């Protein structure tokens, strides 16, 4: 009997997961349920929904059928038990931490992260009393040394933005497991097409859907995926999950919802109370984008490798940081964690320094000069003259945004056109 049921492959899931024909109308494309609220069948039904006793829709801040398609799709692609879509990647991080930490608690984070996440952790999260302790992905022991009785979580990026640092997920997962805390992996740059962190021990995966999952530069969004692997009740460290919730007449979420209780807690406590819901329209655009994720990610990665190789041989280029290059510091880890390719993002050091960076972003005609990654279009930014302009030169270098550094997000155009544009810019 068991063999009659096939397990679909990644491409099939990208197209179908979460999206059966609409039960009411038969619409085959996912309808955009652009509504704030949903009528109840009757008073008893309403009571069951509010008491979490029935599955169903109440109010779009807490859940929406279009957003639910996106949630199930990303959960299926990551191999998780459930997903929760939110308004942005940063909102996903906020809700995850709010569900895990109380004021005075600590979490350990890799210091090689997207700059916006470093800001969020150092500023907003500190103001909530959630204290980040930084560790170095190039020195795995630094994660172990950072563990304290107050540690509640560990946070890393699979491929770090922008320098292409690849973290040894399995090694960090082992440290988190020993400490009895969940490992959170931001899988934005890799996407589940290139890397599935849950296979390497991640308990929670977060995404900025804004980047490659949406993939077309048209919608901000975020996602939380529950791996279903963590025992929230074992050490009684996570009161949102293991203690009776007075707001839901005393139910214990872990006991009631088992291996998807983290996603439910993020929804019925975090999203409900903090409020950063995703618009159904954005969910529609992002879910549509995901249908072509495998095709796009392979092309992004193939183009990026060709560009990195070409740049590495260019006389005006001092260095290229891209783990796909055989000589790169992270090449060996890349072969383990992202064997199909290393994604679209790389940083490049120009021999001509600050002025060469300004000249390059000004001269290109195909690359768009803007602060984003993960569009079908090729993107470029010179952090020293834009996002990191306020910092001193020493601070810029420390942040990996020295005056000579340019970040590229390689699109899915023809690679010869991308290279020709860079050649023009570097003239």
């Amino acid at each position: 009997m068991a063999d009659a049921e096939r397990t679909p492959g990644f491409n099939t899931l990208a197209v179908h997961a979460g999206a059966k024909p609409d039960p009411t109308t038969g619409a085959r494309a996912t309808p955009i349920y652009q509504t704030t609220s949903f009528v109840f069948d009757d008073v008893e039904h309403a009571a069951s929904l509010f008491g979490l006793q029935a599955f169903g829709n109440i109010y779009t801040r807490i859940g929406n059928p279009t957003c639910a398609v996106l949630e199930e799709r990303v959960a299926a692609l990551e191999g998780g038990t459930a997903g929760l879509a939110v308004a942005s990647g940063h909102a996903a991080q906020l809700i995850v931490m709010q569900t895990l930490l109380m004021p005075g608690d600590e979490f350990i984070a890799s210091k090689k992260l997207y700059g916006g996440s470093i800001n969020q952790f150092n500023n907003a999260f500190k103001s909530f009393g959630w204290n980040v302790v930084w560790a170095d992905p190039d020195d795995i022991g630094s994660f172990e040394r950072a563990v304290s009785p107050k540690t509640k979580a560990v946070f890393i990026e699979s491929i770090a933005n922008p320098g292409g640092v690849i973290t040894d997920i399995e090694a960090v997962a082992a440290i988190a497991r020993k400490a009895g805390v969940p490992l959170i992996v931001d899988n934005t740059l890799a996407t589940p097409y290139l890397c599935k962190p849950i296979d390497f021990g991640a308990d929670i995966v977060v995404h900025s859907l804004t980047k490659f999952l949406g993939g077309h530069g048209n919608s901000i969004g975020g996602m939380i995926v529950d791996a279903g692997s963590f025992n929230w009740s074992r050490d009684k460290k996570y009161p949102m999950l293991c203690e009776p919730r007075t707001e839901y007449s005393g139910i214990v979420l872990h006991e009631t919802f088992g291996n998807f209780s983290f996603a439910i807690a993020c929804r019925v406590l975090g999203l409900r109370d903090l409020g950063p819901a995703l618009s159904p329209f954005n969910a529609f655009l992002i879910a549509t984008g995901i249908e072509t994720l495998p095709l796009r990610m392979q092309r992004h990665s193939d183009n990026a490798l060709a560009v990195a190789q070409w740049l590495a041989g260019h006389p005006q280029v001092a260095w290229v940081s891209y783990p796909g290059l055989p000589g790169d510091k992270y090449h060996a880890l890349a072969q383990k964690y992202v064997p199909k390719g290393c994604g679209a993002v790389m940083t490049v050091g120009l021999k001509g320094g600050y002025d060469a960076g300004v000249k390059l972003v000004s001269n290109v005609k195909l690359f768009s000069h803007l602060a984003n990654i993960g569009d079908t279009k090729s993107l470029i930014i010179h952090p020293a003259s834009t996002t990191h302009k306020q910092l001193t030169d020493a601070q810029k270098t420390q942040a990996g945004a020295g005056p000579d550094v340019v970040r590229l997000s390689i699109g899915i155009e023809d690679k010869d056109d991308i290279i020709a544009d860079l050649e023009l810019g570097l003239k």
Partner: protein
Amino acid sequence: MNHDSYPDSYIRGILNTVKTIAMVGFSPNTSRPSYFVFKYFLERGTRVIPVNPGHAGKEILGQKVYSRLADIPEPIDMVDIFRASEFVPGVVQEALALKPLPQVIWMQLEIRNDEAAAMAEAAGIKVVMNRCPKIEYGRLSSEISWMGINSRTLSSKRGQILPGGVQRMGLGNAGDKKSD
């Protein structure tokens, strides 16, 4: 039956045929999982009979609570067990003494007893362990997908809306394919 993973067709077959469920270890506390399952299946028109000696004779949501399986005066299709694994053999023995025999013995999440399962299967009874029938019903009907949960099903067929409301789905067509 391999009790580590069940084919969807096996679970669907059970949930599609069972009309009367006896819930052993039922709690009348409205915040306990057994109460959730009780209420959910009642709302779907299934007959659900609570069993708990501490509350025998009471009526919960209009259903009379019995002390033991043997006291229930009508045939039972499925015994749903909310007791810790070590108490399962006793419950299975009680179930095996019923006439007619139940068709299914179901053990809730975290509950598993392989010897008791073998005993029941030897008598021709289907067994499910370490699963929740409410979650499985929600998964196979696609209702659970509204909560962003990975139903591990794909289908190009329209799901079935149950009469009496728009937010209730049946087990009709949805979910032909496994997707985990």
